[in-house]
């Protein structure tokens, strides 16, 4: 998708994200043909939807579809996915005899769906299986961002039907797509924070002039934009190259940019931004969780450094 078509797609999804959240947004996405777009042009479908989700902010269970589609197992609107536990990158289950021992997270789809897709690590590689959600204990988590609608999922379940063996790299592919989706959502949320802080800086008058006239304020906002633009550039490169390494760097850059945006925008919004009467807190809560999901900026950066040192080789540079 590009040009007018992409713009129309973005406007349509933006309006849906403004109007709906949770199950209602899921229903709207079906209506709007987002799943067909996900199959045809995953880069456009994921970037546009998740940036809108971050910007509003609202939630959906589209992350389930991103992961199942990458695994070649869907999407099916009535099947949820078990995501890795917070901060983890490996599959959320392991094989134990005839059982799959699960410990992970679910989106708002998990509590309502009858079945869930689970990827498990086993002695002979990763396998994917569909299990009954009734065999798992799912507990809604409130935590720092109750509006996100996550559930903690655990238990031992038996596969419905045969296990399907995944190829090496399949989980990494699904993980990369999940990382990019979370990255776009953080970029959307950070863009919204920057706009809130920018508007406040122009309206708030102190010492007889808008605080936007003070260089200390201007440079905080400029640094936020630089961090956001560098995260966007890495997201684009990751879609363009389809490289797991670049996707991990993009996720780390998005997490870093979101923390930079939170810090600077909260400082510029000052007392106002510390209240729950102002929307800033919703974004700050959201990006803290998204940064940890599928591996935080901190852990991905350290892991990248260890890999580079072990191999004594830089990742292949992004080609012209």
């Amino acid at each position, binding site marked *: 998708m590009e040009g007018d078509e992409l713009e129309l797609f973005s406007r349509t999804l933006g309006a849906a994200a403004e109007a709906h959240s949770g199950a209602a947004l899921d229903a709207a996405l079906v209506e709007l043909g987002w799943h067909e777009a996900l199959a045809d042009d995953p880069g456009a479908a994921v970037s546009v939807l998740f940036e809108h989700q971050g910007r509003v902010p609202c939630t959906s269970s589209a992350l389930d579809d991103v992961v199942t589609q990458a695994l070649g197992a869907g999407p099916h609107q009535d099947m949820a996915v078990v995501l890795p536990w917070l901060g983890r990158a490996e599959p959320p289950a392991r094989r134990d005899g005839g059982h799959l021992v699960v410990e992970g997270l679910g989106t708002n789809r998990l509590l309502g769906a009858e079945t869930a897709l689970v990827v498990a690590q086993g002695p002979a590689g990763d396998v994917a299986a569909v299990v009954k959600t009734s065999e798992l204990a799912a507990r809604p988590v409130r935590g720092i961002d109750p509006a996100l609608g996550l559930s903690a999922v655990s238990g031992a379940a038996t596969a419905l039907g045969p296990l399907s063996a995944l190829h090496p790299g399949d989980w990494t592919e699904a993980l990369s797509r999940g990382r990019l989706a979370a990255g776009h959502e953080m970029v959307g949320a950070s863009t919204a924070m920057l706009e809130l802080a920018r508007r406040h800086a122009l309206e708030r008058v102190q010492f007889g002039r808008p605080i936007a*006239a003070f260089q200390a304020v201007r440079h905080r906002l*400029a640094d936020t*934009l630089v961090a956001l633009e560098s995260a966007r550039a890495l997201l684009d490169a990751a879609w363009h190259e389809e490289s797991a390494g670049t996707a991990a*760097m993009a996720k780390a*850059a998005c997490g870093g940019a979101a923390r930079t945006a939170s810090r600077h925008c909260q400082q510029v919004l000052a007392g106002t931004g510390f209240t729950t009467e102002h929307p800033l807190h919703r974004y700050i809560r959201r990006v803290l969780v998204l940064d940890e999901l599928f591996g935080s900026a901190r852990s991905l950066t350290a892991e*990248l*450094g260890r890999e580079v040192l072990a191999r*004594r080789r*830089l990742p292949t540079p992004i080609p012209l």
Partner: protein
Amino acid sequence: MELAAFRTALDQWLDEHGDALAPDRPQDTLDEHMAQLAKVKRLTFDAGFMRFGWSERVGGLGGSPLLRAYLGEALTTRDLVEPGIYSMTETLAPTMVDYAAPALAAEMVPRLLRGDETWCQGFSEPGTGSNLAALACRAVREDSGWRVTGQKVWTSLAQYAQRCVLLVRTGPVESAHGGITALFADMERPGITVRPIDTLHGGPEFCEVFFDDVVVPTGRLLGQEGQGWSVAMDLLPHERSTALWHKAAFLQRRLQDLLDTVAEEALDPVQVGETVQLLAAFRARSRATQHQLAAGERLGPETSVDKVLAAGAEQAVFDLVEAGLAVEVLLGDGSSASRWRSEYLFSRAATIYGGTSEIQRNIIARRLLDLGDDR
């Protein structure tokens, strides 16, 4: 020619002519870097590669500016040219193509591309660093041209240069942006004195240039009289586009060189990971800028983002060098140690030259975030 075909042809030619292109002497001084640059430009021009991406009107062979980006990347990656001194070509030639009289551009640009000449950029003055619009170097109009009197400073490579893209004040002092004119001056004219300035990193990279009643003929006007600010505003994004892609290739190469030589346990994995990410993000951003340029888009203040990222990546890479190779950088006297030390020290200026990081942030705040006036 398309990028893929150009890449294949250039890589093959570079492989075949490696011996002829390699430096004849060790690259320890600026003189040696300049001689090597001139040699590589001549060989790549004569083989045609240096002419791609430039208009036929100035002796080029046409094609996308992406070809220029790749040429500089390939030459830098093979350590054949020092990208800082190579960047003057990418900064000054586009200005001549856009603003010089056609016959002048056609005569002069091939000399720069072929390495027959070196050009410099006379912008900054002792009283005018970040505040370019306050420049005071004065040009008085007469029948045959202008008489220029004043001083420039931080003028890179002026001691080697035959020509100078020069900003002068032709309007009254209070005319600010509106009273500036761009000229293309000959550096061998009577009345010009060049004094190289010794620097922290060991090379007299830049100079003071004194103009004492120097005559610049009418035909050497770039754009219109009083339009010098627009010329400068169109030139500066070129300083932050193709040349920065070459800088990214240089940083990639030197970071890999570090990994090839550094002792086990000498580097902190977190610092390595951060640096690799900063470099990848800078490269991803610069790649997008190269493609915008190739699509014919006019580059503007958004290139200040590229410059901030470039400066951050350069300092991060050489912070890592200083941490990992402390003994070489601090105590070494050999050729390799001297090079690491010089590059480390030069990287300290990355947030200063070409518009300080503060000025870049001011541009971002005003032009990209629309935060209004800062007074």
